[in-house]
């Protein structure tokens, strides 16, 4: 058995969680909320593709963007590689492990054999850190799991070379270098402002109908059509209850990342000595509470199969109300970082 000394910790989200842990391993202490905020990851996108039975939404930016933005804004270099051949990908990963380098790999979550069966869905943009080997298994740090887990070589190969949307193509990365003497305070302050500006801009200014608050409204207006898409009441219930999973339990820290963003703004207020960010953190925490009210509502009506047209309209109105609140919030936030 060979295992790198790596401090495993649970994270709210896979990408922000592993970035925080990897940076900490390399001597840069940055909380998970700071990773989320600096990388401008707060987002909303409404997605409708033939690869999905029902339309879905996400509340963070594109997978990989957190790493790219953190690297760019804090001067951290990540070495990245993609592969077409599983044997070469495995050899490269093992060579890095032999050098004592914890290495992040992009995987299809379905093949993570240590997680419960109800969580095993095909999702190609999950990130885990490989920290060692034991027999025919790898030792992996997965933020969604409380401890270091074992993953068979066969499962990791399948997970790294799954096809379809966001196909990983053997993608791996590790921290290649950090700024000498650590990240300077003025760099950190500037990065915080850049991250806030990017998030606020994306939420209210991007002229794309399925992104930001416009995307929220489009998603809301799509909900009443769901009974026609569903093959039966169980399928409709599953789709409606999935809104809860996306908001709360698929790695958001609760309230669709809004609670974690409140934590970021609180840290930012202290770092920049700006009390207005502290006020904004309370506001986004309250908005997160109302996203949570929606998630508890959809879980309840989904289980009760209380899914008539009036309920679909109620869900639509709740999401539209969240869009109105977020539009006001991010417009105000944008004025603070101009």
């Amino acid at each position, binding site marked *: 058995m060979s295992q790198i000394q790596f401090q495993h910790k649970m994270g709210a989200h896979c990408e922000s969680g592993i970035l925080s842990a990897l940076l900490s391993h390399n001597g840069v202490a940055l909380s998970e909320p700071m990773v989320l905020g600096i990388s401008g990851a707060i987002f909303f996108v409404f997605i409708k593709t033939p690869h999905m039975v029902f339309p879905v939404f996400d509340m963070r930016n594109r997978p990989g963007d957190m790493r790219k933005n953190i690297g760019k804004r804090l001067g951290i270099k990540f070495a990245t590689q993609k592969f077409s051949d599983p044997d070469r990908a495995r050899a490269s990963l093992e060579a890095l492990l032999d050098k004592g380098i914890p290495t992040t790999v992009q995987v299809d979550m379905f093949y993570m054999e240590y997680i419960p069966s109800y969580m095993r869905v095909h999702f190609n943009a999950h990130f885990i850190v490989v920290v060692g080997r034991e027999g025919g298994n790898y030792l992996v740090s997965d933020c*969604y799991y409380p401890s270091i887990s074992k993953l068979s070589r066969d499962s990791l190969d399948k997970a790294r070379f799954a096809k379809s949307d966001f196909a990983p193509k053997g993608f791996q990365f590790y921290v290649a270098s950090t700024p000498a003497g650590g990240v300077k305070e003025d760099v950190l302050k500037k990065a915080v402002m850049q991250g806030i500006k990017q998030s606020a801009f994306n939420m209210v200014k991007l002229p794309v109908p399925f992104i930001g608050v416009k995307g929220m409204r489009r998603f809301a207006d799509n909900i009443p059509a769901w009974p026609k898409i569903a093959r039966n009441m169980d399928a409709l219930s599953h789709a409606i209850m999935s809104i809860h999973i996306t908001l709360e339990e698929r790695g958001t820290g609760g309230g669709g990342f809004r609670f974690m963003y409140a934590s970021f703004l609180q840290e930012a207020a202290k770092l920049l000595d700006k009390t207005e960010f502290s006020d904004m953190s309370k506001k986004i925490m309250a908005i*997160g509470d109302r996203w949570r009210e929606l998630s508890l509502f959809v879980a309840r009506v*989904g289980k009760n199969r209380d899914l008539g047209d009036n309920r679909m309209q109620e869900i639509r109105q709740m999401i539209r109300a969240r869009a109105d609140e977020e539009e006001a919030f991010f417009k105000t936030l944008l004025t603070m970082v101009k």
Partner: protein
Amino acid sequence: MKENDARVDFEQHQVLLYVEKEDGSYGPLQTGAYLVKHYADDFFQKRHNIETECIDKLGKGEISPVVYFMLLYNMTAADIAARVGISKSKVIKHQSPEGFAKASVDTVKRYADVFGVAVADMFQLVVPKEKDLAVANRKTANPYLSILEIGREKT
């Protein structure tokens, strides 16, 4: 969200949430997963309903195993096609028993990989007759052969 409102006593499935602590600061809280604790029974009931519906249709020769796993994992023909590496029209053909009979062994193996089952599970359903029997497929170095292990669960 206040820390006390977020706490869920459910050791089996933990999540990390960000909450408002008693002193007004915001920070992480490791706690049980609300949905899993309160609604997992509903999830498994839905799965059971799909299994019941599909096993009946499989037995009558109305659908192929591709449909069964597609419904079980809530996937579309387009997504399965991309993952298996064949066209969507082929997946649609393979949804009928007649079409599935024309799939190559290699294609069936790739379907099995996508559905996370052994190749043998594309042709059989394993139903233990006694409640305390545990059934598990053990992989071998041969990708087309798995060993079905059946034993009594330790009490």
